[in-house]
């Protein structure tokens, strides 16, 4: 959700640095997050600068603390600005879960519910933001990597993970652009999710190619996004942003919205098979999403890379051993 302008982001970044530093000296949990990111060089620099400037004392910059806390709250208040993204989990988590489970039991007849159904699956959540979708996927047992180009989103995500460290031990976040990891991590993931992100991307063709590159043969990609129709303009921009304020204003650029057919073509160009295209509808009165056949506003696409999934036997055996 790379949606904030550069200047705003810089200020917010400064805020997050400070809070992490403060937390480092006060609280064990967040400090451990910091430790896991020692290798992030620019991060270390900022930290050092801070501790030199403050001479090792614990002066808290009120404004910075407030900024981070406001930003964290924005992401994680289930009834706040991102309420619609929180409730979208009702649709997209089962969609991703069942898409991945279909890779091991294609007939879908394996109805016995398991507590960690996704154990053994590697998932990349592209544009993870504050981690709203990454967390439930990790709770289902998957090894989830969340990436986002926005550093403050990643910081919120890392901080929020520390609130439930045990259940989320298989979750990792990185600030990265997908283009930069596509080659190095090609065919690494059993599943890739790009949810409510492609409508913010400038080079959409390149983005889809990178997504397809990252999944293993037999692996799935799942997109959810907005369609470029007059209806989506009216509902997505005018109503959602300006009137109902379900989504922060300026969050969307309608011209970047992709029609389902356009997105399907881009996916097929990369040699993937489309499995499902489905419409989604948000009811602002109940704050709930439901599946609909009409794809003219919000929709989801599931596609599979041809070839035998190298992971399928692996993941089923490792999930067996987990539950056993």
């Amino acid at each position: 959700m790379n949606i904030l302008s550069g200047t705003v982001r810089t200020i917010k970044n400064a805020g997050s640095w400070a809070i992490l530093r403060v937390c480092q000296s006060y609280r064990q949990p967040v400090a451990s997050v910091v430790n896991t990111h020692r290798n992030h060089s620019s991060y270390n620099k900022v930290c050092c600068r801070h501790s030199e400037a403050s001479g090792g004392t614990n002066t808290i910059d009120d404004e910075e603390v407030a900024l981070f806390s406001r930003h964290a709250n924005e992401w994680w208040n289930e009834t706040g600005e991102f309420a619609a993204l929180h409730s979208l989990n009702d649709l997209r988590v089962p969609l991703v879960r069942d898409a991945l489970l279909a890779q091991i039991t294609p007939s879908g007849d394996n109805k016995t519910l398991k507590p960690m159904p996704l154990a053994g699956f590697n998932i990349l959540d592209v544009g993870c933001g504050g981690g709203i979708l990454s967390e439930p996927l990790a709770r289902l047992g998957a090894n989830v990597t969340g990436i986002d180009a926005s550093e403050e989103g990643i910081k919120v995500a890392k901080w929020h993970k520390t609130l439930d460290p045990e259940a989320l031990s298989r979750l990792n976040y990185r600030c990265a652009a997908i283009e930069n990891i596509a080659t190095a991590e090609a065919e690494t993931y059993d599943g890739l999710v790009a949810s409510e992100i492609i409508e913010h991307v400038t080079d959409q063709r390149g983005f889809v190619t990178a997504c397809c590159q990252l999944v293993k043969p037999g692996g799935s990609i799942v997109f959810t996004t907005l369609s470029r129709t007059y209806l989506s303009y009216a509902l997505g921009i005018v109503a959602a942003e300006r009137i109902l304020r379900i989504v922060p204003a300026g969050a969307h650029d309608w011209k970047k919205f992709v029609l389902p057919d356009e997105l399907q073509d881009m996916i097929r160009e990369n040699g993937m098979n489309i499995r499902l295209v489905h419409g989604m509808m948000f009811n602002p009165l109940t704050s709930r999403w439901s599946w609909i056949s009409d794809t003219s506003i919000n929709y989801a696409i599931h596609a599979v890379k041809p070839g035998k999934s190298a992971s399928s036997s692996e993941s089923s055996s490792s999930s067996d051993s987990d539950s056993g």
Partner: protein
Amino acid sequence: MLSSRLVQFRSMCLPVVLCSRHKRNIHVGKQLRCRSKPELYDVVVCGGGMVGTAMAAALGHEPMFEGKRVLLLEAGPKQNYNEPLPEKFFNRTCSLNAGAVSLLRSFGAWENILNARCQEVKRMQIWDACSDSIITFNHDSLENLAYVAENNVILAGILKQLDAAGDRVHVKYGATVKDYKLPGGQSFDTEQSKYACVQLESGEEIRAKLMIGADGFKSMLRSAANIPTISWNYNHVGVVASLRLAEPTENNVAWQRFLKTGPIALLPLSNEYCNLIWSTTPEESKHLMMLPAESFVDAVNHAFWSDEHKNSAAQYTNRLFDGLLTRLGLEGSSSQQLPPTIIEVDKGSRAMFPLSLSHATQYVRSRVALVGDAAHRVHPMAGQGVNLGFGDVALLRDLLVSVVYEGKDVGSLGHLLKYETQRQRHVVVSMASVDGLYRLYGTDVTPVVLLRSLGLQATNALRPLKEKMIQFAAN
């Protein structure tokens, strides 16, 4: 505003500062003691009555909850279910409907109860002291109307399954809750403030992603969550006792008669024993408690057999109405079976309880859900009390299972609100009908008596309506 938030933030951090310093810098053996971080459970159930124990056992036997951490807290000692049942019946009993039985069966407790002691109810006869009108519910189908079982037997059956769940449910007996700290209000969650926290008398603190209040009608969790209740006192008292029949019969009928002072009911316990639940005025109940055993037995028999309250106008109209129904081809008052005669009251089995109705206006809050009497307490007349509680457990369990399968945090409000909406829809209706029935029968003003006796007769004649009622009572 900003600075007060910070103060909050700082104070929330402070205890952990001590901890981490302690860990890092202070050598073992130094005096500085730190309280370790309270343990975090997925679900903590507060209150180990029938409903709370069923909640914990149901989650403990749920495959989707494998690997989840569940804890049950109960102030009292553990009941020992291994001892053989005493020959004498316990004086507290419940009638369990089909919904309750299916919940108990789902985690294996029903088998235990069947094997221990319970009695099938195949027929229920309700009649009115002021007229001849009568309503009977037969259950010829495989689904039996209800089972009557002693509270202790039900609890023991559930406890056995709780133990069978082994490590999957932790249980603390003698654990009285002193205080709750519930999330909300903070602008910035921390690992400490995000979850619900319970403090025990022992000083121990425990955190939960979801705190379930099954702590009875005076629920402390409910007050800590600032959930208001709507309640009123019936100014009525329930008198219970175990009664022996004059002669053994195939005792499978539940009897309930509406007296001027309130309903009196006999629930079958065995071929020889019945349980009495007599709801009456505080004055009469005191009198009943003090009566010598023989006079008490007479009072019970009199209450079931006496004709002294018959209202002649109601009886006359009744007969006319009966005739009308017959002409319309509907079956009128079904043949009234005669209630059994009581010969003896078990020594020490007489007890009384104040009766009240209360309903929590909300069943949930962020990280809090109420079940059983903590959420709703009804007049025991319709035998709905524990059945409603078991209904709560079944729905909440099902919702939590789907929540886990969607990778959600078990304590977040979204799905809890679903629980509240679905349960309140059911509970409010049944509370209103129990209360309405109670009020309808709490009078002997002629028009009301007429109305209700005609109502009773019509219900008896109109099969579909009656079946609806049975269905509703069974869910």
